[in-house]
């Protein structure tokens, strides 16, 4: 079994350097395409470029997506919160299927989900002197 560890390895160093070179080259290419006038590029023989409109449009699209992404993430979080009348606030499949082992003497009881009725009785029906609630 291969162990996953974040330690530096020679392969990772090579990947990192290739990524660095590639991103620098890509950025230089983008600057050249955006700033150098078309006539100069044509005179060099490089004629098949996208329209320069996209050199401005694509960053604007990215920034708007980033802004909408904040709002969208907030909204998705709110939508996936369980409503107050849903069963997910009380229990779930793991708790329903847990085993009811009998606790042995002198042994630590097995870890299990305590039903909400018991929790409520412990908190709210016990004498006030014992629990310190805010």
């Amino acid at each position, binding site marked *: 079994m291969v162990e996953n560890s974040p330690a530096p390895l020679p392969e990772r160093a090579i990947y990192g350097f290739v990524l660095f070179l590639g991103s620098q080259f890509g950025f230089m290419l983008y600057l050249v395409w955006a700033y150098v006038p078309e006539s100069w590029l044509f005179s060099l023989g490089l004629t098949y470029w996208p329209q320069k409109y996209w050199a401005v449009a694509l960053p604007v699209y990215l920034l708007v997506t980033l802004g909408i992404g904040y709002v969208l993430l907030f909204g998705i979080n709110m939508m996936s919160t*369980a409503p*107050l009348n*849903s*069963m997910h606030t*009380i*229990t779930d499949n793991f708790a329903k299927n847990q085993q009811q082992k009998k606790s042995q003497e002198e042994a630590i009881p097995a870890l299990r989900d305590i039903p909400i009725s018991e929790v*409520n009785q412990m908190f709210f*029906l016990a004498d006030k002197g014992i629990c310190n609630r805010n």
Partner: protein
Amino acid sequence: MEEGMYRAVSGGRIALQRRQYSASCREFSVRCPRLQLRSLSAATCSVWLAAYGLFVLSQNSMVLSAAIFITLIGLIVYLHFVKIDQESLLVIGSLGIQMTSSYASGKENTTFIEMSQVKDVVINEAIYMQKVIYYLCILLQDPREPHGVSEVVPLFQSSKPRLDCLVEVYRSCQEILEQRKTSDFTRTLN
């Protein structure tokens, strides 16, 4: 009959009224504050000022009539469908639990749950908007399968009392529900 002033989750004041009709029958009513004149006039003034601003810009007098119409219809809809005046819970030990919501326009919504369907009344915590709130809820069970919760019915949804008020109601309800358990036990013995 006892009455106490408490606070809602949003910070507004609510009143809890407890009545005991017999040993196994109790009623709890939570009353929300009535619609304030100052908030009503603030809303009306802002809508009408906005409409007047639109009228000055567009010189179309239909905007003013539309604003008056919208304000009236909006107020009626709000009072009839949104603004809840009082929510009450009637627990009858041998029969069931009845929840009533009465709106500001006089409309009343009633729901009744039979006692054999009620597993327990608990205080649950859940995430609501950007807060975690305590709310009282009835756990329903299938009468044929008494060891599972089939549904959760939240109570006092519009008034949303805070924990101190909920604990009072919870303790009273548990006293009644315990009588049900002892009466079940004596019935199965006989």
